[in-house]
């Protein structure tokens, strides 16, 4: 009977673990989606001076977009705070999908303009168009995961975003 009891506990633990794993996957999906939308919004920070000189925005094949790097980074931070419901020190508010009281850590934001291409981003992805690379660490606490932070590394470019929409 002890063995049966132990087996029952193991089975229940297994299915609870599966629920936890699915919960983590769904959280990661929602998080990544919010981060991507926040980064894409930074593509509005066009460097107008360079744009007037060089941009060929009407040509789909050679669409050169030069971003104002400082403004783009500020826009990303502003939208991350809004979309992830973070306060000024990047800690989650009550309404946030992040349920930990530690701050979200922005490890890296890199803006790649056309004059710096081609190159390779820190996540080893080739960069061939105007892109933004972001590396965040988001605090998590899932029962069956020892990780304290979920690492999010994404390379986002406007053209891929535009063509991904069906």
């Amino acid at each position, binding site marked *: 009977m002890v063995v049966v009891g132990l087996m029952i506990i193991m089975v229940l633990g297994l*299915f609870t673990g599966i629920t936890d794993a699915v919960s983590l996957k769904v959280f990661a999906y929602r998080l990544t989606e919010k981060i991507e939308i926040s980064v894409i919004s930074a593509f*509005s920070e066009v460097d107008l001076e360079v744009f007037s000189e060089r941009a060929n925005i009407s040509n789909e094949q050679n669409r050169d977009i030069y971003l104002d790097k400082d403004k783009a980074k500020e826009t990303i931070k502003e939208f991350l705070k809004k*979309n992830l419901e973070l306060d000024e020190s990047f800690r989650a508010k009550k309404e946030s999908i992040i349920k930990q009281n530690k701050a979200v850590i922005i490890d890296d934001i890199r803006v790649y303009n056309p004059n710096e291409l081609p190159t390779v981003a820190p996540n080893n992805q080739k960069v061939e168009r105007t892109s933004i690379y972001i590396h965040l660490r988001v605090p998590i606490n899932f029962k069956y995961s020892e990780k304290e932070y979920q690492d999010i590394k994404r390379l986002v470019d406007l053209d891929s975003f535009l063509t991904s929409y069906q």
Partner: protein
Amino acid sequence: MTDLIIFGLIVLALVFGFVIGVEGTTPFFSRTEFDMICSNFLKETMIEKGLDDTSKQELIQELKNEGFEDVKVVAPDSLEWGQEFEFKVEASLKLKETKDYSGAKEIKTRVFVFEENAKAMGLEN
């Protein structure tokens, strides 16, 4: 006889565990479905610089097809390039959940909210 009882208890544990697993994960799969549909229409709003009535009805219908009810959509129908906007979708979903160890079910209504701030990014006129 003892072996039969043990076997029966193990099967019961497996079935109960399976029910917990399915009921425990169904809301998450529904959440993902909800997010994917809303995300697609958010992208449309960003790229087309607004979400017109036809697209709003399509969004509502797609969610209804997945079992969602009382769908409310807040999205601008016209935007300028680079203009910031809020996109919000709220819907409810009825789920059957096990009430107690007797296996009795009850219907619970869960409310799903998809809310994002973004900018219009479409490059075509």
